[in-house]
């Protein structure tokens, strides 16, 4: 307590210099925690967008080998109708599972009678899809199980084909048995895939119509929706165990295994964060080192006096370390206040921007990660403490007579 009183009074005595140091630590704290909050918000937003908005779900069940050979020989890695029903029944028996729905991917040509272009499509069960997408449901409504030929067309593709809601087109391609097939589709509405590269190719349709296109009753995957993202590892293990027990040769992919974009985005943000974190920490610590080195030099005589009246070398180191730590603590406390203030300011201003490779506007927001802020505070306090420790150690080692004679 005595050293804390000493430290706080000395900080107050040199209040201008201390204020500059505290502000440097606080601004460093604020910028790191805001950027961390932004990356966390982005990760969470992208995850939700992939799971629900992208309709990927938490887990996807494929036939074993689909990920290596499925694109080349899709018909060999198709679950037949019986297998789909069996897997659905097994997976639904797990309490954390909210939904198990089959899907079928397809590709071919789409034509409006004048223009033709390639398309990529996904056949979904309309009611399941509505449940999976939840708040990400398109404004014009989803697919309708009563109208199997209805499709949703990506906006750029709709523009290319001059398709408007209520209009129709023809999709063409080969069935799994190699026969040419063509089907009429009715355009229900358009949607934005969120990625420029896919916004001119994608359509969504009912599973029933997709199966008709490929002349099959099967599905190439089953998408599983859970009650909580945290349950993924446990449910994945349970499904694997159930499949093995029932003689089903399957492979299960988690949402992030299927979303390579997520990993690229996360790696990039993690790298930027590390870069910013390092620079900011170095600046903040250098500020404390500078302040504490000056403080130690100015107080050499005081150190001599304290040593003469019975303070050990360790006491001198402790005295200045406490002062450095107190600067770190005050800087972190101000940093927390600044972070919270900026967080709410950003929330009220609702800034928006268009991310790279995206065609949709997103709101700039940051998470308040209390755990991270606590760890960052402790780190800054520790670094500030060490910044003071080393100059103090050097000063404590100097002969007392030299310190007493210091002017």
């Amino acid at each position, binding site marked *: *307590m*005595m050293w804390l009183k*000493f430290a706080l*009074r*000395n900080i107050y*005595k040199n209040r201008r210099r201390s204020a500059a140091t505290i502000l440097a630590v606080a601004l460093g704290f604020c910028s790191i925690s805001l950027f961390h909050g932004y990356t966390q918000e982005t990760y969470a937003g992208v995850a939700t967008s992939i799971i629900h908005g992208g309709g990927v779900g938490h887990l996807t069940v494929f036939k074993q080998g689909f990920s290596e050979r499925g694109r080349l020989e899709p018909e060999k890695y198709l679950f037949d109708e019986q297998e789909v029903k069996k897997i659905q029944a097994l997976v639904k028996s797990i309490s954390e599972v909210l939904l198990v729905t089959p899907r079928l991917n397809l590709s071919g040509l789409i034509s409006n009678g004048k223009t033709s272009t390639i398309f990529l499509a996904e056949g979904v069960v309309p009611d399941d899809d509505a449940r999976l997408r939840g708040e990400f449901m398109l404004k014009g409504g989803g697919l309708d199980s009563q109208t199997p030929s209805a499709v949703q067309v990506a906006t750029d593709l709709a523009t290319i084909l001059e398709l408007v809601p209520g209009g129709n087109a023809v999709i063409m391609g080969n069935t799994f048995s190699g026969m040419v097939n063509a089907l009429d589709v009715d355009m229900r509405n358009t949607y934005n895939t969120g990625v420029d590269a896919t916004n001119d190719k994608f359509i969504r349709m009912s599973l029933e119509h997709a199966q008709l296109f490929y002349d099959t009753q099967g599905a190439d995957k089953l998408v599983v929706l859970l009650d909580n993202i945290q349950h993924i590892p446990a449910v994945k293990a349970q499904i694997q165990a159930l499949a093995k027990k029932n003689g089903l040769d399957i492979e299960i992919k988690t949402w992030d295994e299927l979303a390579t974009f997520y990993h690229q985005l996360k790696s990039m943000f993690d790298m930027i964060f590390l870069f910013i974190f390092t620079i900011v920490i170095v600046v903040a610590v250098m500020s404390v080192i500078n302040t504490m080195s000056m403080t130690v030099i100015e107080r050499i*005589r*005081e150190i*001599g*006096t*304290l*040593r*003469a*009246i*019975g*303070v*050990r*070398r360790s*006491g001198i180191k402790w005295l200045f370390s406490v002062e450095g730590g107190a600067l770190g603590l005050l800087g972190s406390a101000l940093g927390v206040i600044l972070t919270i203030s900026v967080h709410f300011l950003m929330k009220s201003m609702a800034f928006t921007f268009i991310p790279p490779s995206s065609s949709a506007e997103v709101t700039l927001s940051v998470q308040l990660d209390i755990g991270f802020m606590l760890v960052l505070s402790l780190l800054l306090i520790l670094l500030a403490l060490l910044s003071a420790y080393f100059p103090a150690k050097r000063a404590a080692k100097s*002969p*007392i*007579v030299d310190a*007493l004679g210091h002017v």
Partner: protein
Amino acid sequence: MTIIELTDVHKTYHLGETLVKALRGVSLGIDEGDLAAVWGASGSGKSTLLNIIGLVDEPSSGTLTLNGSEVGDMSDNAKTDLRSRYMGFIFQNFNLMPILTALENVMLPLQVQGISALEAQDKALNSLKSVGMEKFSQHRPDKLSGGQRQRVAIARGLVTEPKLLICDEPTANLDFENAERVMDLMCELNEKRGITFLFSTHDTRLIDRVKRIIYIEDGTIVKDERK
């Protein structure tokens, strides 16, 4: 009873490339109850002698015993603890902590010893009272005159009830009146409480007041006069 004994103590400094012999074979004993002045001109070795006796400097050769124990081979922590328990210091420039009040300055050596703040406060107030500074207990050093600061410094030196109070030119920065008051105080404390004082001075006005004068010239004790 001899508190501190020096035998053939030498102290040599390197001042750049010059070798300065500050003490040349000093042998001396300080007895309990002494009110001794080390008298000599500037650069004669007074401060060096007091620093070595006060364990804030080390002799280049020779031995120093405190209460019969050789201190030469002791660790820095052991010497620090000896200073804390047996000695008090009064400096020419007072050396009070500017951020602490007079009371807190006096409490400091006790708190360093690990005494609780409450007990330290009681003792510090008594110590301030003994030097007539209790009314100024809440004043910071910059609000006190030179004489008042030195009295607070004496209270700080006395508060641990040391066996020996070492004063390096305690009146050098004081006017005559304040120097007299400080000297009166030291004499009174020596008389009434039997505190041993050892101080360096080249102020001739103080010489008549002490019981013992140790004359030092060029690092050698030339005369040790007891009255």
